[in-house]
């Protein structure tokens, strides 16, 4: 087992185990912190796949942004309302149907894709190609996305204003 294998199995185990806890734990805070580990594990796997930019973005946006936002939400609302922050299994039947369908799709994709099984090269950075693509080929979409986010920002600010 060489170093890359070792690291891969470590991150894979981390992702799966913590994801399992996210689903099973009854305490929302535990779920949120386990989600942190899941994100982290996924980021690690991205790095091993040579998608370093994706990994960093995963960390910045999911861990630094979304997870913190969720934690803020849970922590700040917990004591105000009297709702217990415990999750419970509800809507078991519709949920299992939905999950079953989704799992079917995932497995189908898994089986149909032609995976590249070439030995791992030393990962080269994807940063420059991604930047080129964004700025040249997909510049319009990129700008549109920027405008969309700007609108969201302005919207959030105007909702947060007093009057």
């Amino acid at each position: 087992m060489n170093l890359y294998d070792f690291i891969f199995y470590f991150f894979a185990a981390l992702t799966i185990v913590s994801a399992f806890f996210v689903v099973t734990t009854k305490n929302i805070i535990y779920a949120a912190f386990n989600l942190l580990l899941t994100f982290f594990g996924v980021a690690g796997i991205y790095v091993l796949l040579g998608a370093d930019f994706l990994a960093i973005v995963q960390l910045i946006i999911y861990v630094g942004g979304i997870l913190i936002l969720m934690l803020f939400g849970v922590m700040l609302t917990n004591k105000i309302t009297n709702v217990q922050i415990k999750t419970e299994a509800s809507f078991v039947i519709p949920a299992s149907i939905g999950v079953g369908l989704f799992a079917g799709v995932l497995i189908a994709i898994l089986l149909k894709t032609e995976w590249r099984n070439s030995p791992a090269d030393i990962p080269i950075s994807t940063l420059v190609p991604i930047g080129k693509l964004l700025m040249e080929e997909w510049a319009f979409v990129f700008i549109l996305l920027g405008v969309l986010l700007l609108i969201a920002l302005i919207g959030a600010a105007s909702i947060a204003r007093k009057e």
Partner: protein
Amino acid sequence: MIFEFFADLLGSQILSAIIIAALPLVFIILYVLLANWLERKVSAHMQDRLGPMRVGWHGWLQPIADMIKILQKEDIVAKDADRKLFSAAPVLVFVGCYAAFAAIPFSSAFVGADLELGLLYILAVSSIVVAGILMAGWASNNKYALIGAVRSAAQIISYEIPTVFIILCIIIVSGTLNLTTLSEQQSGTFLNWYILGGDVEGWKKFALIPFMFIGFIVMYISSVAESNRTPFDLPEAESELVAGYHTEYSGMKFAMYLFAEYANMFVVSALVVAMFLGGYQSPFGYVGDLINVPWLIPIEQFFWFTVKGLFFVFVQMWLRWTLPRLRVDQLMALCWKYLIPIAFVNLLIISFLMIL
């Protein structure tokens, strides 16, 4: 570089990876001992006191004595605290700071991981610190700790924005996010440092200087804020929140926060140094070049990097013992009304200059 050296020496990649990973830890421990002593001495002398004088020459062994003391302390967990998260939080905070050391270019021969995305990587792992701080605040089940944690998270997230803007300025000028490349671009004398316009040719260099300088100041202010130091130490404001998110901690767990705080101080200083002040490059050239001993150069580079880093750590201490703490609204006003607009305008001007 150093990885191959150890891999050849030991014949095992895994073993050499472990050694490489442990080297920054050694550095952190030595540095924390030094910085802790320095902090006490600087604070004491700025207030016309002497500080620790008894343990060793001018008390230089005091941090070691304190470390031994803290190791013996009882590990108290409050009754209503969430045990698991309470124990995990200091580890998470320390891991976040420690992980940042992986990308710091100590010298051309010793970079833990020569990442193409070094700058962004350091930003990314610092978000783990935020999660750890929130975890600590929550797990302590203490209102001071929770308020401290929420303040800290809000502060770090807010001040990340001007930091990213300034990083964008640097990217525009240098065209890279790699901290080693960034340092290499600033080789030669200090005239090539990015704070003096970098290796850009002609009149642009002079046009860049003031904006680089503004960028440097904005970056430094927001990095001080990100490491939760005075004047931005609202998360652990003694006078209102006892000790913020680490109120309930004692013994070794408390020491981990201490280590993380000092390590973080160095990380942000190192970032500023790598971006604006030549990274590990010497300001004048190398003795190794002069007397033709090539292996001396990496050691000199390590020396210069540490000296520059420690200088900015010293400036943080200096600021701490000069300025009073900001109020919460002042903190947010400074970030959103001053730093972000300035950084944004700076970014626009620099990109305009570089297009010309």
